[in-house]
């Protein structure tokens, strides 16, 4: 792996709150174009990790390096990243286009290219017809598509996705999940995807970073051995899912293997 391939490098990362550790020690790298899922039990420090990776919260210890620039140094550059939240977090008083323009206005993207860029991204997400709609008029799935469009729009070094499908109904989640891999491949986006669903992680990711219970460390860097395109109901997905459940049963202290999986439609 060359250094230019590495988009995100996390070295000896630790986060504590008032002396109580939330993240014990994290070391990992993510390459350009990779789709990496983060899987961890509740309370393992995923939110703290996302906050440090998004530039919102300096870690107690360690380094976060984005495209060769270290974050949280006095003169470090702001990272250019996208974020897809669990809830869409669109501004309801701005139309879809206005929401996207606001994010572009804070980026280095030249103004004369905004219109074309917005059109292109909305086309990729299949929501061009909602360009001038208020977010309130959209369904949950459509809003989350706009949220993904917003993240892709700024040409980010990487996109953080915090359980973006967990609030959607299963049918919508399936449809968006299916499209997400295609969108990421088409745009070359690097994605860090946090989820509670093992099957979702197996279906979407190239690699899965499995965390221990909090204060977390990486229990396993799991490479998903299934080529793309994948089928969510494929037996191999289920086999890998079962394999991961077997591996985490003891470190996560699970009684029943199915407890971490959402029932599929």
């Amino acid at each position, binding site marked *: 792996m060359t250094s230019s391939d590495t988009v995100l490098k996390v070295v000896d990362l630790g986060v504590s709150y008032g002396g109580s550790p939330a993240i014990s020690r994290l070391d990992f790298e993510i390459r350009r174009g990779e789709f990496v899922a983060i899987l961890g039990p509740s309370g393992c420090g995923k939110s703290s990790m996302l906050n440090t990776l*998004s*530039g*919102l919260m300096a870690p107690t210890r360690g380094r976060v390096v984005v495209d060769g620039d270290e974050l949280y140094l006095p003169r470090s550059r*702001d990272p250019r*990243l996208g*974020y897809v*939240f669990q*809830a869409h*977090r669109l*501004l*309801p*008083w*701005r139309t879809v286009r206005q929401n996207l323009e*606001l*994010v572009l*206005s*804070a*980026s280095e993207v030249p103004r004369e290219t905004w219109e074309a860029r917005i059109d292109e991204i909305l086309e990729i997400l299949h929501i061009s017809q909602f360009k001038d709609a*208020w977010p*309130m*008029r959209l369904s949950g799935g459509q809003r989350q598509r706009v949220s993904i469009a*917003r993240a892709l729009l*700024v040409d980010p070094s990487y996109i953080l996705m915090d359980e973006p499908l967990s609030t959607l109904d299963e049918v919508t989640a399936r449809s968006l999940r299916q499209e997400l891999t295609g969108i990421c491949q088409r745009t070359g986006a690097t994605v860090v995807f946090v989820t509670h669903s093992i099957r979702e992680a197996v279906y979407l990711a190239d690699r899965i970073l499995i965390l221990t219970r909090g204060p977390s460390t990486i229990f396993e860097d799991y490479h998903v051995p299934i080529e793309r395109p994948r089928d969510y109901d494929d037996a191999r997905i289920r086999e890998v899912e079962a394999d991961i459940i077997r591996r985490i049963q003891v470190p996560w202290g699970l009684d029943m293997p199915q407890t971490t999986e959402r029932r599929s439609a």
Partner: protein
Amino acid sequence: MTAKTLPLARLRLLPPGGPGAGLPGLVIALGSMLVIWQLGAIAVRPWIPTPADTAVEIWANLQSPEFWLDFRLTLARVLGAFALATLAGAAVGILIGLSERAEAFFQPLLALALAVPDPVYIIFAILAFGTGEVAGFVALTVAVTPFVSNIVRSSVRARDTGLDEMARIYRLPRAAALRHQLLPQLVPALLTAARFSFALSWKLAVVVEAIGQPDGIGASIFESFRLLRMREVAATAIIFILAMQLLERGVLGRVEKRLLGWRG
């Protein structure tokens, strides 16, 4: 009888909003008020004028240039104090809502200011600045600002902090985040504060004029009271109250509709 206890068949016949809602309700309310007013006028004659006498006096007032001069003066005072108190109150409210340091400084002052009866401000302003325009302007602004600050502060505290995070992650400059992300969230509270500020401003303006100004609607009402011309007191007050209500509902209502149009 509450809506819950009404039989289902009757509930279906009621207009939205419950019994007496809509135009029939308004007619009944106005009719009842006129009847009570007339009875009061008979019982406490001559201190309460009859509705008919008051209507004649209202018509006379509307044709009087002196009345309109007073009206314009009072309106200017109300609008001036309203604008300053709303802007200052909103600014302080946002500051307190966003900054713990600012809250530590302003909160005790705010609590004290809210506890002071409004006439106290008026008396002290007259003592400090005399009976000119400044006293009224200062008294109104100082009395209204804390209420606006309090309403806006609560709204800032109750904002969606998820949107703050979104703004930080997408590196929105502070001014852009304030304008496009925070202020729109505060619009309902700002409108409530503006309505409250306007209502308080015109009521206090009349009191300020009655106590310490030689002109304006308040002074006119006080002069009529001094001469025991109760028809003039009632007529002037009614015209002014109706005008202020129309202004509030008309202008602020339109602003509200425009700013909250996205709600559909």
